[in-house]
């Protein structure tokens, strides 16, 4: 009997606490003005992160309440936007990347916006000149390697993708499945950029012969297979991001002088993923949406990007945090492929790749 009472007590406590804590995340806007605050809905993916004060400031300045719809990974979020395009669930969509951009544009989910902030954006990132989708950040998918391992075994850093076929690197690389992983797809695209549509399968066939390990997702590759991560796996080379080495420093339990990992940034070894924002077609809050897009492209948010989402700012005026300056390497010649080419052949490329590498 005592336990039954205890349960009722705990349950009521929970309900009370729950409703009390629920207010925790939302910011209250003091009604300085008489008019009700507008509501702006931002649809994005689960990896979205931003400093709380930036959003609070924006809300105060513009008398608006911002709601985020975190919708799964990039593909899931985009799917959601496409599926609901007739009656859009949000005003702004952030997070479509260059591998999906063509598809997003074909589905006509965006309204164009010529933001004044675009003048500060690196031109090489502006893949949609009609400004339906505006670039916000980029990340380079690069091979990270375990510095200590390389030192101990006196290995030299591979200077090209072809180097990975050398016998001294046998079994030392783990990659992700392009069918199930975004960095995996990016890396495969890099190999297509380097070896061409005719040659990339041969490269992969050789790479397979050289013992490459394939897993399905970045978490497994990085935390289970990579030797320099907390998981202490077997492979000292992993397909990850150029921002991973500084992340290792920032998120280290003990202060570090040097990053334990570094990226291979030889030409065409990294693939540049660019993230775009767009105003969703049919929005009722066009003005506020424009302001938000400007906000995303402006220096304060752009400078916040590296430490929140571990990507690089598209705005050339934005400064990088010191850890990034020290430990992030930005390749001069990242691999790039034509958007439409990607959209058309992506499925076929993945299928062919699967046949060669996995079966």
């Amino acid at each position, binding site marked *: *009997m005592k*336990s039954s009472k205890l*349960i009722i007590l*705990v*349950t009521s406590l*929970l309900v009370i606490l*729950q409703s009390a*804590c629920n207010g*925790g995340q939302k910011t209250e806007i003091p009604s300085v003005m008489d008019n009700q605050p507008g509501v702006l809905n931002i649809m994005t993916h*689960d990896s*979205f*992160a*931003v*400093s*709380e*004060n930036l*959003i609070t400031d924006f809300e105060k300045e513009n008398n608006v309440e911002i709601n*985020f*719809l*975190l919708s*799964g*990974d990039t*593909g899931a979020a985009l*799917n959601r936007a496409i*599926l*609901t395009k007739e*009656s859009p*669930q949000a005003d702004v969509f952030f997070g479509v990347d260059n591998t*999906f951009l063509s*598809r997003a544009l074909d589905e006509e989910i965006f309204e164009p916006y010529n933001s004044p902030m675009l003048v500060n954006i690196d031109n090489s990132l502006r893949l949609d000149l009609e400004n339906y989708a505006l670039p916000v950040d980029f990340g380079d998918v690069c091979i990270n390697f375990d510095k200590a391992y390389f030192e101990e075994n006196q290995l030299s850093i591979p200077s090209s993708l072809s180097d990975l076929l050398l016998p001294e690197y046998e079994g030392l690389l783990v990659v992700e499945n392009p*069918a*199930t992983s975004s960095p995996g*797809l990016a890396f495969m695209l890099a190999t297509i950029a380097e070896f061409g549509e005719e040659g990339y399968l041969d490269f992969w066939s050789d790479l397979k012969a050289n013992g490459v390990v*394939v*897993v*399905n997702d*970045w*978490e*497994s590759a*990085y*935390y*289970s297979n990579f030797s320099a*991560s*907390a*998981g*202490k*796996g*077997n492979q000292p080379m992993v397909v*990850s991001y150029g921002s991973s080495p500084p*992340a*290792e420093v*920032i*998120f*280290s*339990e*003990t202060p570090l002088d040097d990053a334990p990992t570094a990226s291979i940034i030889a030409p065409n070894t990294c693939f540049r993923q660019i993230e775009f924002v767009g105003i969703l077609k049919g929005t009722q809050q066009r003005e506020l949406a424009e302001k938000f897009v400007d906000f995303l492209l402006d220096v304060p948010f752009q400078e916040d990007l590296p430490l*929140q989402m571990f990507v690089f700012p598209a705005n050339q005026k934005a400064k990088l945090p010191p850890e990034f300056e020290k430990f992030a390497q930005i390749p001069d010649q990242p691999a790039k492929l034509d958007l439409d080419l990607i959209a058309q052949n*992506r499925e076929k490329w*993945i299928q062919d790749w699967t046949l060669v590498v*996995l079966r």
Partner: protein
Amino acid sequence: MNQRLKYIRMAPAILLWSLPFAFLLVFYFQPLLANFRMAWQATTSEVLASISLKVITQPLFFTIWQAILSTLLTIIVGFPPAYLLAKYRFVGKSFIRLLTTIPFIMPTVVVAAGFNALLGPKGWFNLLLQTFFSLDKPPIQIINTLGAILLAHVFYNSTVFIRVVGGAWSQLDPKIEFAARTLGASPLRVWQKITFPLLKPALLSAILLIFLFNFTSFAVILLLGGPKFSTLEVEIYIQALHMLNLPVAGLLSAIQLLFTLVLTILYTRLIKTKTITLTPRDPEEVAKPIKGWKQRSFLVGTMSYLIILFVAPLFSLVLRSFLLTDFSRNLDGSTGNRFSLVYYQELFLNRRESLFYVPPIDAILNSLYFGLITVGIALFLGFLAANVISSRSRWGKLLDPILMLPLGTSAVSLGLGFILVFNTPPLDVRSFPLLVPIAHSLVAMPFVVRILQPVIASVPRGLKYSAMVLGASPWRTFWQVEFPILFRAIISAALFAFTISLGEFGATTFLARPEQPTIPIAIYRYLSQPGGLNYGQAMAMSTILMIVCALSIILIERLKLPNIKEF
């Protein structure tokens, strides 16, 4: 006049019993059909032409094959503990029962990490074997093989078998078996003619549930099986969310559903029409203390492999959450490890002042909140549904197979369906937080029904009638007669509903608002960034999840009937 009166009086009852149907219609069939319609609309002749039969048959066959293997293994692994827990009283009994349930709630991402820590190339087992036998290479290479998939499935689903079958077994009157023996039946024939037939409903229920779980298993295949293995669910995920190819995803989804329907119809046929009226015994009565070396060695043997299978991976996670690895290498190249609470402390800090920082307390409260609501919905609707099915009316025969369908439906398809249907207020994600526990209930309800239904069917009708004849209203009859008999089954069902909700990840990512994250979502956020602190926090959060789950289970199991000592 009389007929009409009769219907009017029956109206509230009819409304009540139709609630499970209504629930399924609104929250299952509606989104599912929306998803299929969308896929159909997007299907063009080009798409149809590009689909090769292999895309369908290969994943289908592998899905069935691994599901069968996994289920068989789970039965074998689960049998001794089920028997042990049903028939004997011993020190550590509740611990074992609790231990085997915890895997059920663990997000696969975390389990994968745990298995790796144990069985990976640098895992403890391999290290032990390598030093012991002076081996060059790690002998156990199980990650990314079929073995890993099977192992993980057994790890997750054993509890279903142990609780469902063990629970039924513990209420079986041992005198019936005793009677059979005095009539000349050897132990084998007692099993054959008496025990097995009486356990059949529970056995079939457990097998169906486990098979469906294995059939729609996703994260285990993806993370522990690796790229070489593809099931229907993985293919649907890839097609829908990576290739944005809804027609193919829809087709695979439909096939998956069809197969599930065949299976559930087969199941309802196997559970024969004869209802067996059993007066369930108090499990405390049935359980005997362990005597003799044969029984003792059975106990020790079973507990050993249970501890290895269940404790070891979980323990390695817990350990990892307290172990601080120093990157500063010592002179001899080794890295130091020391005990530290830094990961737990870090959980409570929002260093980057990120908007979506998840305070652990919030995550715990949210998870518990959703869990309790799921229990409420699933128990209520599940009980109604179980009654409808037990009554063996036309409606019951219809409800039975379709009730199980959510278990065999792709979470991705359902999630997309939800997005399609529930996108305008007041029933959209923003304004209707209950969408999350509703989605959880879709999975939990079949469980509740399968657990309650055999017990409801076994309540001797005579008991109910005698109560009513003595003047008890249907409500009082329920409380005084049926409820005490059902009590243990209700507790078991509530437990499953609760743990299903606690560990649910897939639907929750679609439907949860960022202000209401659950513990699995928090864990996933930590694991999607590099860095020792992130990894450690994920482990710490997982440990917290385990503790929350364990405490809740202990609390629920302690619930005793208020006035009735022995029913």
